């Protein structure tokens, strides 16, 4: 679903590559034993290593390596059993070392590929160039003082995975689909919590434009793109800006630009210009990282079923639509819940109830699935009651609402309130006769050709039976009697 930008000289194609920084889910930092918990008081989670005191030496966190390998496997990528840490040199107040320890020529994870789902139901493959380990910087706070910047080093040294994509993305929709899919995979793997509000996941977006099939244009790198919406908006803005520039006879400058989520524009970060000369070199404090392929194979054995595998299984085994399967696998816990509901029951009916009723009522009440008063077991029982004709689908909605507020089981509510569906034909027939006897004028009119009145009779019978009459039986009996 490539999206063109219309210019005065014709259509332009957008070429997008993304760099996603994902904070690794671990207890301690990449090279020190300080905590990584979010939201602590400033500078309380900083070791002397993170503060770059002279003589301090980094020691690599084993779990970070494992998480990176796990993620690489989840992205279908090549795992490099030999990788090298390098220093990326630049000065900034929130980078006490004066360099970031990162990986340059030999990253821990190489090429891979993932599948993204687009709004029109189609699927596209996006190449992964690499994934490498690196340190996060501290946090600068600019709005506390008119002339000063405050620096908190709690985040300094936290472990990041930088995931770099190939420039395979060609529209804002594809970019958001890509970011969502990466986040979903990381959450399934439990290697990053994917929380963009807390900055656990951040994206840099590389954008250029070109005439259809033409030479690649000069790209700009947009930083500070920290939500799905921002990804969409910054691409729309930046592509337009570049097309207008080129058509105006000017050139796009290769530079770093900052996304401003308030003014909805990108602007040049001049200070970053000369800082771009990073002078990478292997970090002499750290030996090259090596591990055995057998260890990688062991980790592979522990991978969960990944989102796309799950989606395809739901489509095949449960005959769900791509859309429904996509909604259910969006969160691992949601997919697990669904499978518990569907276990031994009508899988499609279960999907409808989870997607339309349960997720709907949870959203309305601002609750997460984990906080749901209705367990998967309970919802499954309700669906079983519908399937075996104990209650009608309509009554089931009332029972469901009652379950949500009281937490009671479906069967209990049906018993207590006497909601059991009447399938006994003679009982329904008695009500049908009653209704027809009470409305002779309408019976006359119906027989005279007013077909629409059929619904009226159904309604009356259902009302008299307090909704408990089996709708199929009601229809059948009414048809018989009215046509006689």
């Amino acid at each position, binding site marked *: 679903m490539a999206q063109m930008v219309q210019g005065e000289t014709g259509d332009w194609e957008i070429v997008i590559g993304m760099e996603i920084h994902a904070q690794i889910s671990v207890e301690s930092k990449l090279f020190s034993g*300080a905590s990584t918990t979010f939201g602590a008081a400033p500078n309380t989670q900083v070791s002397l290593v993170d503060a770059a005191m002279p003589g301090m030496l980094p*020691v690599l*966190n084993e779990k970070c390596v494992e998480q990176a390998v796990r993620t690489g496997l989840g992205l279908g990528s090549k795992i490099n059993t030999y990788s090298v840490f390098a220093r990326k040199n630049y000065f900034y107040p929130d980078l006490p070392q004066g360099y970031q320890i990162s990986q340059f020529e*030999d990253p821990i994870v190489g090429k891979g590929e993932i599948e993204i789902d687009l709004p029109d139901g189609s699927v596209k493959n996006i190449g992964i160039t690499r994934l490498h380990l690196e340190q996060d910087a501290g946090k600068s706070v600019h709005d506390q003082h008119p002339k000063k*910047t*405050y*620096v908190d080093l709690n985040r300094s040294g936290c472990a990041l995975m930088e995931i770099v994509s190939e420039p395979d993305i060609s529209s804002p929709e594809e970019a958001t689909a890509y970011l969502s899919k990466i986040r979903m995979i990381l959450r399934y793997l439990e290697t990053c919590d994917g929380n963009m509000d807390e900055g656990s996941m951040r994206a840099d977006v590389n954008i250029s434009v070109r005439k259809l099939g033409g030479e690649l244009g000069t790209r700009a790198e947009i930083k500070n793109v920290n939500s799905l919406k921002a990804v969409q908006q910054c691409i729309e803005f930046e592509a337009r800006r570049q097309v207008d520039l080129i058509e105006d006879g000017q050139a796009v400058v290769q530079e770093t630009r900052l996304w401003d989520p308030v003014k909805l524009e990108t602007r040049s970060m001049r200070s970053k210009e000369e800082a771009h000369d990073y002078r990478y070199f292997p970090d002499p404090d750290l*030996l090259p990282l*090596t591990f055995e392929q057998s260890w990688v194979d062991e980790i592979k054995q522990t991978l969960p079923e990944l989102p796309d595998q799950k989606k395809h299984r739901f489509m095949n085994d449960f005959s769900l639509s791509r859309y429904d399967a996509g909604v259910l696998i969006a969160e691992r816990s949601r997919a697990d819940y669904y499978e518990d509901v569907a276990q031994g029951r009508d899988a499609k009916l279960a999907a409808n109830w989870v997607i339309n009723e349960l997720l709907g009522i949870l959203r309305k009440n601002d609750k997460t699935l984990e906080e749901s008063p209705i367990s998967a077991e309970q919802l499954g029982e309700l669906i079983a009651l519908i399937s075996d004709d104990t209650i009608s689908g309509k009554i089931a909605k009332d029972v469901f609402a009652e379950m949500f507020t009281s937490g009671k089981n479906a069967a209990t509510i049906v018993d207590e309130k006497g909601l059991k569906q009447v399938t006994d034909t003679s009982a329904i027939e008695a009500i049908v006769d009653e209704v027809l006897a009470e409305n002779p004028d309408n019976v006359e009119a119906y027989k005279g050709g007013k077909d629409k009145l059929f619904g009226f009779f159904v309604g009356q019978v259902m009302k008299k039976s307090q909704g408990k009459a089996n709708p199929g039986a009601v229809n059948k009996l009414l048809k018989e009697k009215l046509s006689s």
Partner: protein
Amino acid sequence: MSLDKESVKKVASLARIRMSDEELERMMPQLSKIIGFVEQLAEVNTDNVEPLANVVDITPELRKDVVNDGDCADKVLKNAPEEIQGYFVVPKVVE
């Protein structure tokens, strides 16, 4: 190889070292000499030799993922030019 003044100026600015014109002039031949010394290595034939990141052939010792450091804000902030509410305070660096 000899470095021109612009290159010396760029290296100085990347290293955040302020240098007067006079100092730049003095550094030019000195830096050029150092580079010339290192350039002798280019005489060695390195065809088909992988770049070497380290000379010792040992596997690094890794750390277990446990929190056993930090929680020493007072020590960390001891050399801060200025401190307010536990933050380092520096001149404004925002764009």
